[in-house]
């Protein structure tokens, strides 16, 4: 299996590397968006897919990264690659601040606390308009960097996926899964579940933070409403779920399939595509809660690392 998989992945990587040379502007931007969704879905998977703690406001880290990165570019004149890293750092910092109280909450309470966090960040960004521009949004100097951003976003997606692989194959990752399976038993076996959760939470915040900052730079304009929407959170969750949560490549598959579906199929039905999206969510939850890979793994006894 892996004998076939590794060369295949190398071919795909090579193709993606040369793509900006032949692809149209739209093509490059679309693939870059796929990278972004892989990053988001893969990162969500690190905390929620592995530990079962449902982060229902994961877009908060994306938005925090977007604002941190954009502010550093606009006000401090930082070069965007550095600002992107800072966006990741800002998201991790936020995860520390919010993780200490919120990761002590259980089940649905954690989910709702995260949902609220997202709303609150939006309110705060709007309120501190002296810094953030508030509802005016933040406009960045014009810059055509869509190809470099394509590569950086690609590397980011690769890093997040590689990190998932490292984690899933490590004892750290297995311990995260014990939190999902039976947190109490894990504690009784000497596993420091809180700090494990916190570790996963911080890792899961970094990717979205960097992605947010990159998106802000690429788009050149951000505003509170468009970087903190619940829809982004739900989309990344559905992608991870569709591909198979708790797996390494599930989020990748989900991001690719659903993004392509959205671009090709939904664009044809402008007035009903939100309905389609709703139907897909319901179908994924009811018919394939383990996702594509989960089903395959069960049926063909494939290892979790695929």
């Amino acid at each position, binding site marked *: 299996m892996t004998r076939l998989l590794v060369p295949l992945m190398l071919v795909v990587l090579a193709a993606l590397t040369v793509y900006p040379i032949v692809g149209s502007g739209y093509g490059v931007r679309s693939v870059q968006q796929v990278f972004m969704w892989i990053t988001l879905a893969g990162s969500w998977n690190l905390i929620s897919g592995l530990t079962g703690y449902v982060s229902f406001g994961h877009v908060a880290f994306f938005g925090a990264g977007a604002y941190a990165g954009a502010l550093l570019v606009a006000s401090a004149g930082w070069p965007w690659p550095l600002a992107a890293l800072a966006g990741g750092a800002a998201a991790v910092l936020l995860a520390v601040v919010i993780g200490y109280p919120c990761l002590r909450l259980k089940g*649905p*309470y954690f989910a709702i606390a995260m949902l609220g966090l997202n709303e609150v960040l939006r309110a705060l960004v709007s309120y501190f308009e002296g810094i953030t521009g508030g509802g005016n949004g933040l406009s960045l100097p014009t810059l055509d960097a869509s190809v470099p951003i394509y590569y950086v976003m690609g590397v980011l997606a690769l890093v997040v996926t590689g990190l998932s692989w490292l984690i899933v194959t490590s004892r750290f990752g297995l311990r995260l899964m014990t939190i999902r399976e039976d947190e109490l038993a894990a504690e009784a076996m000497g596993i420091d579940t809180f700090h494990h959760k916190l570790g996963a939470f911080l890792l899961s915040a970094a990717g979205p933070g960097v992605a947010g900052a990159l998106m802000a730079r690429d788009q050149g304009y951000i505003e509170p409403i468009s970087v903190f929407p619940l829809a982004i959170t*739900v989309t990344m969750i559905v992608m991870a779920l569709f591909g198979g949560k708790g797996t390494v490549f599930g989020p990748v598959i989900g991001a690719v399939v659903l993004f392509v579906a959205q671009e090709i199929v939904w664009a044809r039905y402008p007035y009903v595509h939100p*309905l389609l*999206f709703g139907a897909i969510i319901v179908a994924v939850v*009811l018919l394939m809660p383990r996702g594509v890979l989960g089903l395959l793994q069960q049926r063909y006894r494939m290892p979790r690392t695929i």
Partner: protein
Amino acid sequence: MNVVITPAMLAQVIVSGILAGSLYAMVALGLGLIFGVMRVINIAHGPLLMLGAYATYFLTTGAGLNPFLTVPIAMALLFVVGVALQRTLVFRVVDAPELSSLLLTFGISIALVNLAQLAFTSDLRAVEYITGAWVVGGLALSKPRVIAFLFAAGVTALSFVLLKSTRLGKAIRATSQSREVAMVCGVDVARIHMLTFGFASALAAAGGALLAMIVAIQPEMGGVWTFKSFLVIVLGGAGNYPGALVGGLLLGLVEQVASLFLTTQLSEVVAYVLLVLVLLVRPSGLLGGRQT
């Protein structure tokens, strides 16, 4: 440019907070029932409220009914919708991990909002019935909000009577305390789930019907209500139904007072900080007993 806040202003917003709080309490009671009985966080609760508002709008403008008469009709209609949703979809995620119920009901929620958009368009609509205020001792009591308050208080009180004294209510409470015990005692749990979901949807509809006379109606109006309702049941204590009343009034007061002293934007932040604090200090809510 700043305004000095006087006791009279504080009194005025406290009144507003209580008026708003009663609606919060009634709507949140529905969400709380579903959560208590089925362990489902119903993201579609807000959109069901929106459907209730449209019911009132069309019954008032189309059939020419008195808006207050439409409240029970909207409740009955949404009871049916709720039962149907539960029977077809929601029953599958009862007791499932919260991810499933959150996503499933979110899916239902965007489907409802977009169906409403297709069916009713996103034109803003409103039911203008009673406007203005009664002035009592310098305090302005908004007529529509006071009437909504009375309705909400009435519906909530009736709900408590129903939960407390009827066979059905007892079965609902038993099921929310322990499904196994309820089953052993001969409660048809599947039926209770259905009725609870219908009943909860009816409460949301009542909220929507009353709101229709207060704010503009549009397909996306329900969104904030899901989150607010959840705040209320957390404040009051999940599974503790009278807690919804306390939580609702508390949220209404906190929002209004925070809006007065800070700004309307920051009141949301204050409410959230309150939520996290309450969850950390008393995970079972302000009125809740000890969680095991």
